[in-house]
C-alpha cells in the first residue's frame, strides 16, 4: 500500500513554522517513515507544475503556514485545496493573520509609501512602487498583486483544522500528525490544541494574589521582571487569561509575558475585546481621572491585544476597506 501524501506550503510568514517541522528532531524520521512528502518548497525541489499534474484530492493533508497577502499565495492555496483532502492552517498567521496582519492597521498605499519611499535607508529618487504590470521595451513584466489587507487562510479557502502558535509547538504537531494518520480526528473546524487558557496551566498562577490590582502598566523592558511572580501582578500585560494553552508556556518560562499567539479559546468571541474586559476590571482605582491615567500607560491597546489575531477581529470589516 502506498503511503499517504503530505504537503507543506508557506505564504506570508517568517519561516519559523518551517522550523517547527524541523524541530520534530528524531521524530521527523517517524513521520517520514509513515508518509510521502509530496510538496515542500523549502526543502524539496518540486515545482508548481508538478502539483498541478497531481490528481485532485491525491494529497492526504497539506499544512499551510503564513497569512495571505499576495495574489500568488491565493493562487497556490486554492490549487493545494483542490489537490488535498485535508487542509491544516499551520501556525498563528494562517490561523488568525498573525504578526503580518498588524499591517491591517495601515492602508496599502501607506505601506507601500513607507516601504519604498519614506524609510531612511531607501534610495528611490524615481519613486518606483511595485505594480502588477510594468511596460518595458522588451514587453510586459508582471508581479503578484499586493492585496489591500492580510487575510487568515480560512478567509481565502476552506480549512479543515487549525494548528495554532507562533510557531506551532512540536508536541501539538506530532499529536496532529498522529491523529490524522490514525483517522482519530475531532469535528471539522477544530483547533488541534487544548481548550484551556494559558493561566489554567501556568506555574505562576500560584503566585497570583487573591485580588489582582494594577496601578500602572509596564512594558517588559521598563521593569525588572520577577521570574516567578504572575505578570499581571507585576503590572505587565500578559494575554494568558484569554489565550489558548498548549504551548507549554514557552514565553512565560523564558520570563516573558504571553503575547497571545495561540489565539483565543473556543468560548471567546473576540480576543482583544475579551482582554479589555479582563484587564480593565482589575485597574486599581475608583477615580475617573486616575483610571484614565492608568489606561493611558498601555502603549498600543489594539496592537497589543490583537497582536496575533487582527485578521479575525470582530471589527475587521471596519478597519479594513473593501478591495
Amino acid at each position, binding site marked *: 500500500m502506498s503511503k499517504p501524501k503530505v504537503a507543506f506550503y508557506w505564504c506570508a510568514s517568517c519561516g519559523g513554522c518551517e522550523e517547527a517541522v524541523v524541530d520534530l528532531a528524531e521524530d521527523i524520521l517517524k513521520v517520514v517513515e509513515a508518509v510521502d512528502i509530496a510538496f515542500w518548497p523549502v526543502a524539496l525541489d518540486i515545482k508548481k507544475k508538478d502539483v498541478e499534474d497531481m490528481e485532485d484530492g491525491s494529497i492526504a493533508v497539506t499544512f499551510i503556514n503564513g497569512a495571505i497577502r499576495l495574489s500568488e499565495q491565493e493562487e497556490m492555496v486554492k490549487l493545494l485545496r483542490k489537490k488535498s483532502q485535508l487542509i491544516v492552517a499551520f501556525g498563528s498567521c494562517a490561523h488568525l493573520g498573525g504578526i503580518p496582519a498588524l499591517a491591517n*492597521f*495601515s*492602508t496599502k498605499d*501607506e505601506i507601500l509609501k513607507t516601504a519604498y519611499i519614506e524609510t531612511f535607508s531607501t534610495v528611490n529618487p524615481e519613486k518606483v512602487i511595485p505594480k502588477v504590470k510594468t511596460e518595458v521595451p522588451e514587453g510586459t513584466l508582471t508581479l503578484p498583486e499586493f492585496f489591500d489587507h492580510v487575510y487568515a487562510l480560512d478567509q481565502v479557502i476552506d480549512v479543515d483544522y487549525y494548528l495554532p502558535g507562533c510557531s506551532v509547538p512540536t508536541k501539538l504537531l506530532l499529536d496532529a500528525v498522529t491523529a490524522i494518520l490514525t483517522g482519530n480526528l475531532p469535528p471539522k473546524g477544530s483547533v488541534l490544541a487544548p481548550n484551556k487558557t494559558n493561566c489554567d496551566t501556568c506555574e505562576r498562577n500560584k503566585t497570583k494574589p487573591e485580588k489582582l490590582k494594577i496601578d500602572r502598566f509596564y512594558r517588559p523592558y521598563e521593569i525588572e521582571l520577577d521570574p516567578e511572580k504572575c505578570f499581571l501582578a507585576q503590572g505587565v500585560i500578559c494575554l494568558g487569561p484569554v489565550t489558548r494553552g498548549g504551548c507549554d508556556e514557552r514565553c512565560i518560562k523564558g520570563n516573558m509575558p504571553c503575547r497571545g499567539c495561540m489565539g483565543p479559546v473556543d468560548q*471567546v*468571541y*473576540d480576543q*482583544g*475585546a*475579551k482582554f*479589555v*474586559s479582563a*484587564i*480593565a*476590571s482589575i*485597574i486599581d*482605582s*475608583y477615580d*475617573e481621572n486616575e*483610571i*484614565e491615567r492608568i*489606561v*493611558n500607560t*498601555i502603549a*498600543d*491597546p*489594539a*496592537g497589543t*491585544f490583537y497582536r496575533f489575531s487582527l485578521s479575525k*477581529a*470582530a*471589527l475587521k*470589516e*471596519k*478597519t*479594513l*476597506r*473593501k478591495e
Partner: protein
Amino acid sequence: MSENKDNFEPRIVAFLCNWCSYTGADLAGTSRMKYLPNVRPIRVMCSGRVDSQFVIKAFAEGADGVLISGCHIPSDCHYQEGNFKALRRAKLLKRLLPQLGIEPERFRLEWISAAEGDKFQHVCNEFTEQIRKLGPLNLKKEVSNE
C-alpha cells in the same frame, strides 16, 4: 433599502442595568415621556456584566452606536462596584475603538438612576442626534493614522 445620510436612522444598542437604568427607562415610559425610538434596550443585571465583547459584537453586527448605562458612581451599584468595572472598561474601549476604525463618540457610558426618567429621555435623544451626525457605521472608511 440602501441607507444614505438623508434617510439614515441610527441603530443604537443600549445595555441598561436592571436596578437603576432599566427602571429609569421604565419610568420614562410610564410617565409618557417621548423620546426618539432609535435605542434598542437590552436589560442586564449590572453594567459590570457588560463584557467589552458585547460592545464590539454590537458594532460588528450593525449597531451605529452603543450605550451602556448603570447606577451612579460611587455608591449606587446594587453589587457595590460593578459600575466601576464598567467605567474602567469604557475608558480602555475609548482608546481601542479609534484604532479599529470606529469613532469613540459612537460609544457612550452614562449613569441613570431609577428616578431619572427625564435623564434617560435626554440621553436617548442627544445620543441619537450625535450618531445621526456621524452617519452610518457601515460605510467603509479609510483608516488613517491620525
